[in-house]
Each structure stands twice: as structure tokens, then as C-alpha cells.
């Protein structure tokens, strides 16, 4: 520990005549030359090849299909330009689905944020509960969506469901939550939130662990209450992680298809038909490939604009 270091007391004159120590710290990273770069590109080739084949090529094909009037997949069709888009834009069901997706996104975000933050704060504590919970709390996420759908349909079954019975005991008749148009959407949102909140909880818990204890104690000494400490100290440190989580989580949430497909299939009477469900039904039930493609392209555009606005206005300072 007694080794001499740069912060030695003898206040060094900031003279330009002492460049030696500076050049050590600001040394530019040496580029490795052609061999180095070739190796790098070789490493990148496999993932780019897979992405080109499975993501980029289908994306281009979807755009081309949206400019045609294809019905059953693979059937003969003609190029009709933007006519298909006009059909979609005049379809009230498209706008309903878009609005429902907005609601789906906001409610999923709200429910999962509350559950995930609550869980993350508890995971931080000492004791056996937090220690074991760090392992089991992720279980709802590792269960296949099919099983999630079965479990909740079973627990909410109007005849034998344990939750139905619990609510009946306190005088509330749940009926059949998945087939009641009034509450079907919120029911599926709650089921989806149950499936996904553990992942967010673990990420937030990880971010909370990066908040230095000394800063928190300093805030306490200065007389800040928990609320002030959170907004002044914790939140700014969490912001980059919350930003990434918010962006990725919102897009993943918006694109959820399986939970809806496996519980209500978009029903009853379209009450749970969000945008992915609308695209799926248009392609596979109504056999209108081009219209499904056009709706998808429009959705991607909406998502792109929303994501750009999110990045523009909510990006924390100094993050890439």
C-alpha cells in the first residue's frame, strides 16, 4: 500500500513540459492491422448470415408481399402497389387492434413495473427469503407459455377454479374471465405480466446492486428521506438500465402473440385482438397474406417512430 502513486501530495505543476505521464494514460488503442480485422469479420460472419437468412430476407419478402394482392399463401397474385395499404387503413378492425395494442402495452408496463420493482427491492434485503427468492422468483418466466395458459385457465375455471372459489368466498362472482368481453383483455394482461415480471425484476435487482452504499448513506446523513433519496440518487444511477429495459421490454411486450393465442385466441368477439393477433388472424384465418403483410409493415413503422421518440426524449445523458 505504501507504494508511491500519482496523487502524491507535492502538487505537480501543470506544466506542458511534462508530457511523459500523460501519454501513458491517453495512449490510443493500436489497431491490430489487416489480420486482426480479418479475424474479426470472420467471427461476425455466422451471426450475420443467420440474421440475413431468417430476419432480413423474410422482412424484404413481407414488404414485397404487401405490395401485391396475395390471398392464400403462395397463390398467384398481382402487383397492386399501395392498394393493399389503403384497404388496411380503411379497416376499422386494424385501428381497433392498434388501439388495443396501445392499451395492452401500457397496462403490461404498469403491472410489470410495480411487480418487478417491488420484487427487486425485496430481493436486495438480507435474510433467507431474499436468498432463496433470487433463485425461485424467475420460475414463472421459465415455464412454457402453453403451460402458463393451462395453469391460469385451470385456476380461473368457472366450475373448479381455485381463484374462482376464493373470490366466490368473499362474494365476488368472477364468471369466466377469459370469455367475458369486459374483462378478457385485463385477464390476459395479468397472465402475461405474471409470465414476464420476473425477468424485469431480476434486471432491476441487478441495477439496484450497482448503487454505491456510501452515496446512500451520505444522502441519509444529509437528512434526505427515502423518497428524495430515490429520485436524487438511486433513480439517476438506475436510469440507463431502466431505459434499456423500457425500450426492449416495451417492444417485446407489444409483439406478444403466444399468450393471447393460447388463452383467448383474440376473442371473445375480438376483445383481445391486439396487433400481432390481428396480423395472425388475417394471414391464417382469413387467408389474406398481402393484407397481413401490409398491416405488419405499418406496425413496424409505428413501432420504429415510437422507439425513435422514446430514444430521443428519454435517453439518459451520456449513454450510447
Amino acid at each position: 500500500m505504501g507504494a508511491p502513486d500519482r496523487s502524491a501530495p507535492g502538487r505537480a505543476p501543470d506544466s506542458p513540459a511534462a508530457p511523459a505521464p500523460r501519454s501513458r494514460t491517453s495512449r490510443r488503442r493500436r489497431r491490430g492491422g489487416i489480420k486482426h480485422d480479418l479475424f474479426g469479420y470472420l467471427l461476425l460472419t455466422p451471426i450475420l448470415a443467420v440474421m440475413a437468412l431468417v430476419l432480413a430476407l423474410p422482412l424484404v419478402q413481407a414488404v414485397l408481399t404487401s405490395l401485391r394482392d396475395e390471398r392464400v399463401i403462395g397463390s398467384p397474385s398481382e402487383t397492386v402497389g399501395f392498394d393493399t395499404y389503403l384497404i388496411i387503413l380503411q379497416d376499422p378492425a386494424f385501428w381497433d387492434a392498434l388501439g388495443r395494442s396501445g392499451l395492452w402495452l401500457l397496462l403490461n408496463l404498469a403491472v410489470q413495473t410495480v411487480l418487478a420493482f417491488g420484487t427487486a427491492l425485496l430481493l436486495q434485503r438480507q435474510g433467507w427469503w431474499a436468498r432463496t427468492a433470487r433463485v425461485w422468483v424467475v420460475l414463472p418466466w421459465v415455464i412454457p407459455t402453453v403451460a402458463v395458459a393451462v395453469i391460469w385457465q385451470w385456476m380461473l375455471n368457472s366450475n373448479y377454479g381455485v381463484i374462482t372459489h376464493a373470490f366466490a368466498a368473499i362474494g365476488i362472482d368472477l364468471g369466466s374471465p377469459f370469455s367475458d368481453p369486459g374483462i378478457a383483455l385485463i385477464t390476459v394482461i395479468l397472465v402475461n405480466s405474471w409470465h414476464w415480471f420476473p425477468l424485469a425484476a431480476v434486471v432491476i435487482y441487478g441495477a439496484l446492486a450497482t448503487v454505491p452504499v456510501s452515496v446512500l448513506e451520505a444522502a441519509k446523513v444529509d437528512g434526505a428521506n427515502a423518497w428524495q433519496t430515490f429520485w436524487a440518487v438511486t433513480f439517476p444511477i438506475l436510469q440507463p438500465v431502466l431505459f434499456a429495459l423500457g425500450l426492449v421490454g416495451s417492444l417485446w411486450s407489444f409483439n406478444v402473440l403466444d399468450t393471447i393465442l393460447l388463452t383467448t385466441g383474440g376473442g371473445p368477439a375480438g376483445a383481445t385482438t391486439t396487433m400481432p393477433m390481428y396480423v395472425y388472424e388475417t394471414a391464417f384465418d382469413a387467408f389474406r397474406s398481402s393484407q397481413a403483410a401490409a398491416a405488419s409493415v405499418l406496425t413496424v413503422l409505428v413501432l420504429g417512430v415510437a422507439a425513435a421518440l422514446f430514444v430521443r426524449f428519454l435517453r439518459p445523458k451520456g449513454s450510447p
Partner: protein
Amino acid sequence: MTWSSGLRRVPAGLTMVLITLIALGPIYWVVVSAFKTPQEIIRPTPTLWPQTWTTHNFSRLLETTPYTTYLSNSLLVALGTTVLTVVLAVCAAYGLYRLEVPGSGMIAGLILVAFMIPGTLLIVPLYGILSDIGLINSLAGLILVNVAFTAPFCTWLLRGFIMSVPKEIDEAAAIDGAGPVRTMFQIVLPLMAPGLATAVVYSFVFAWTEYVYATQFILDDRLHTLPIGLSAIVGQYTIDWGLVMAGTVFTILPTLILFIVAGRYFVGGLITGANKT
């Protein structure tokens, strides 16, 4: 002491009970139900603990459904996806965040966009492409599709881990005469073990739970994965809750085992990843 200790007036104990009930309650319920007799399962007043334990539901599942076929298909797909994802993601992350080849900023951006593409949009065109290259109705095709969704996310996940390995190590290795390949595999990779564990768990869980592509791209019943098999049991025997419960338990069991073994590494891995974001 953390800032949450300032919230000590919030009844934390109550919240713990609530979170436990929310996260584990449904899992507990399906597991005990699977051990009940069919009569007890549909009894008007649910029993919190089976009055008579029976493994009859499980033996019926193994006798009347091709569960073991589904299981081996799912294992193949999940393991194949995991191995390929880890290889691709490690290579990509090393090239992008360690070697920093020219244009890596743009490629990293492309990879970020990739894991946000709506999967529903790709079903129809992907079906055609997989048919053209002979990978429709094949587990290899399913693995390929899974990898396209998991590898970009895992590349992003590994960023923090690669950056946490000091650059000086590379330089020291170069001075000792190690080439770039040896530096990568023998020096940097072992130091990234927690990151690799995180990528393994994420891609395994993704492939294990994936439903939409598995139902669209696999036509042959003998090639179906567990989620498809389970949904077939649900559809086929809607009233037979005993069979459905047993099927559900057997579908979630393998990931439960994986998590009991590797769960702590996963949570730890995500934390390191977040630290370096």
C-alpha cells in the same frame, strides 16, 4: 444497508408473502393437482393438499401420449439452439466489442434492431424460405429460427462481460506470442464464464418455451416439441384435467431442474451485464 431500508415502514413481510404467493402459488397449485385423483381435481370445493396421492395421471400420460418423443424433440431443439447461440454470440461479441473491427458500431446497431423485430410478421415469408432450403418440418429448421432470435440478444448481453475483462490481458498475451485465436479461446473466454452461463440459460429457456414457430413450421406429429404436445393434449381431452396437469408438470420440470442447478448463475450474470451497461 440499502435505500430500501428507509422504507421500513412498508410492511415488507406482507409484500414478501404476496410475491411468494403470486410467483409460486400457481406452480404449487398445478403440481399438487397433478397428484390428485380425477374425482378430487374437479371437486366443487378445492383441496389445498391431495387427500389421496396418486401417480396415476403421470402413468396415463406416458402410456396414452407420445410424451417421451416430445421430450426428446424439445431437448434436441433446446440444446441445439443453446450451443449454436452461444457460439455465434461469443464470436460476434468478441468481434464487435473486443477486436472492434471497422464498422462494428453499425453492426452492433443492426443486432440491436434484430431482437425487436415482431416475430408474427416473419411467419409467412419464413415458411417459404424454409421450404426452399428444405428445412420445413425439421428440427434443424426450428433451431435455425430460434438462433436468429436468441443470438442477437445474447451478443448484446455479453457486451458487459467482454468489456469487464481488462484489455491489458490481451496485450500481455500478444507479447508472450499468443495469436488472436489463442487469446480469444484460452485467455478471454474462460474469464467470461458467468456471461456464458447467462446466455446458456436464456437461449435454453427461449427454445424450450417457444410455441408459435414450432406449431407453424413442424407438421409431422413425431417431430413436435413439448409445448405443441401439451397443447394437443389440452385440445384433445379438454375435460381430462388430470392428464393436462401431469403434462404441464412434465413440461415445466426440465426447466425447473435447470434452474435449481444454474439459477444463481443466471441472476448473477444478468447483474454483471447490467453493471456494465
